[in-house]
């Protein structure tokens, strides 16, 4: 396997108060491989997934996808937006401070019933009223409002630099350990939500049902069917997600994740609760996902699945990486055996 690294986790530490869920975990996933993260319960596997997908922000360390960190950049559009929000806040602040005075001067005193309204005069009064109110009660308030709006926007932007939706749009999809489907939606709709980021129709196109909307809708539905066929659920396309049996729900979650057209898919315990026949199906499915060109990272407890399909495995224990290697290496690694089965040595 000499493929390019697609995901690189560099010294990631996740701390929740005093609890250290991951401590300096590093791993690199190569494009096109099936990579497993294993470890006893509470080893910090799901936390690592959450850090990768932007649900948590890593306390320390870096997560590189395709060689760079997934982060919102401060673009020209962001600047415009920040200034716009700042100006809007300024206007609202000024109005809130002396709207009644301005109104009284410019509208009430200038308007004589049923007479044409002197717009120019009114505007002039608006300016003079604002001047008369004094520097601080207009410009001061305006500047204060602007700073408040601008800083507020900046703060929100800063806290939103790495969010799950951004990570998903960058090309990392995931499934959840405790299945998180949209229960009240049917299968097609669930998959369509995954495809949403590739839709181009906006609010007005959807509201007015433009021809472009219909074209896109038809194409998207066909594509959604392909995803459902891929996970062999097309027969149940119209039923509610919550009505599916457990194993099928897992497959639907995979279809929904694939619908985002990721380069990398993170599967969190895909075989949990499956019988041997189902997990054999799942292994085939995971291989087919890899064959589509999607790199797979999975957390799994079912060793038959892990050993059967993984190209490489990382073992976590107590938030630390204790081993990394091919299934063969892991199987014979005494540290891993100790982690899973315990040792006679007291440590």
């Amino acid at each position: 396997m000499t493929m390019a690294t697609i995901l690189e986790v560099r010294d990631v530490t996740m701390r929740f108060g005093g609890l250290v869920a991951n401590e300096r975990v590093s791993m690199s996933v190569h494009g096109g491989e099936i990579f497993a993260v294993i470890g006893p319960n509470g080893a910090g596997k799901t936390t690592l997934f959450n850090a990768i997908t932007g649900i948590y922000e890593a306390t320390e360390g870096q997560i590189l996808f395709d060689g760079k960190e997934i982060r919102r950049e401060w673009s020209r559009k962001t600047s415009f937006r920040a200034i716009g929000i700042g100006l809007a806040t300024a206007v609202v602040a000024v109005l809130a401070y002396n709207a009644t005075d301005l109104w009284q001067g410019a509208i009430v005193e200038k308007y004589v019933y049923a007479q044409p309204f002197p717009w120019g005069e009114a505007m002039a009064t608006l300016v003079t009223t604002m001047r008369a109110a004094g520097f601080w009660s207009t410009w001061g308030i305006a500047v204060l409002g602007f700073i408040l709006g601008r800083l507020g926007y900046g703060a929100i932007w800063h806290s939103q630099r790495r969010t799950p939706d951004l990570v998903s749009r960058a090309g990392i999809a995931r499934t959840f350990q405790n299945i998180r489907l949209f229960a009240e939606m049917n299968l097609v709709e669930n998959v369509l939500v995954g495809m949403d980021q590739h839709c181009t129709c906006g609010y007005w196109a959807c509201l007015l049902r433009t021809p472009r909307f219909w074209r896109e809708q038809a194409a998207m539905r066909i594509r959604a069917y392909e995803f459902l066929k891929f996970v062999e659920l097309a027969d149940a396309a119209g039923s509610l997600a919550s009505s599916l049996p457990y194993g099928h729900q897992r497959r639907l979650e995979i279809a929904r994740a694939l619908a985002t057209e990721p380069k990398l898919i993170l599967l969190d315990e895909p075989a949990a609760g499956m019988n041997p026949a189902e997990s054999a199906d799942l292994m085939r499915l995971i291989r087919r996902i890899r064959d589509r060109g999607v790199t797979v990272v999975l957390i799994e407890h079912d060793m038959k699945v892990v050993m059967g399909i993984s190209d490489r495995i990382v073992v976590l224990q107590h938030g630390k990486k204790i081993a990394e290697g091919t299934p063969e290496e892991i199987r014979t690694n005494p540290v891993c055996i100790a982690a899973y089965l315990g040792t006679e040595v007291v440590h």
Partner: protein
Amino acid sequence: MAISSKRITINLLLIAAVASIPIIEKFVPLGLHISDPMTDVFVYAILGLGLNILTGFTGLLNLGVAAFAAIGAYVFAISTCEIYPFQLGFWSALGLTMAAGALAGFALGAPTLRVRGDYLAIVTLGFGEIVKDVLVNMDSITKGTQGINPLPPPTLFGHELGGSGQYWLFMVFALVVAIGARSLERSRIGRGWISIREDELASRAMGIRPDHAKMLAFATCASLAALAGALTASRLSSSGEPGNYDFQISILALCIVIVGGIGSVRGVLLGALVMVGMNSIVLVKLTELMGGSDAAPPAALADAHGLQWAFLFVKTWAQNVLISPTNWKFLVFGLALVLMMIFRPEGILPARGAKEDAPDGDEGSSGASGVGGVPGGGASPVATKELRP
């Protein structure tokens, strides 16, 4: 297609039946007088449909929707009333009102994007009270508790509309809003909203931008509520006093959504009919029947002395405030709501139950909007065929 054309027929028949009420009233002298309260039903339907987008689809509980209606009514009033210099026409004022409503929605939505559930309910509740108080206290602009009047009546192509004209205009408004809500629901926008309601984290992980979606929901809700407020103001020729847009209106709108079926457009229409209809038609008629102010014994009873006496007895009792059903309306509402929650918590026409005969859910049952099936010829016959069980 068979299913959806049947649905379209039913919808058209229903619309025709509702549209014919003023005509029937005119030619059949039953003394029904229900077209006036029915116009209220349409306004509340618009309010309910707006709230349904925020609370039903997106799952954000809003207890201050009346504030948006108030903003709508006042923006409409200030931009049209002749005591102000703006004096816009009905339609341009309506456009302005909806835009102002959307802005108000943004203004409330932006700072509350991270707030959810009970907390959001409290924030919106507070917003409702604040707007009411601001309207009272900015009395040089809003005329305080007097309300702004007179306002121009609804017009169409330059003609002022009277009773039945307004009835039909408001009906069309409610219909257009319903179709619009339906169109949004059955598109990526609506799917985004519903996915946020179902599981916000999962929908984010699928690439939905919740901030964006929530802001759109807030703006749409507020804009529709403002439309409802403006229509009422125009109909009553007055913005009404700020106290008219109190918590009770918000709760009534919420009841409409819950009773009808949360997240269901048809449900909300029915909910408006049931709730407002019960309030201003059934209870009022019942009070009249039980001998409100001017009811005389029916002619059939005139001869039978015993019965007449019984009628008078009931009438005397009914004039007692305690016996008059309109005074019991909150008890009736409360009871109805409690019973609903026990026996049919998903509403009369739940979002999914209404679609049982067309399980594809996305297209086939779009009913009133008349867009059954996927257009574009053979674009996706596979899809529609396989969707049917």
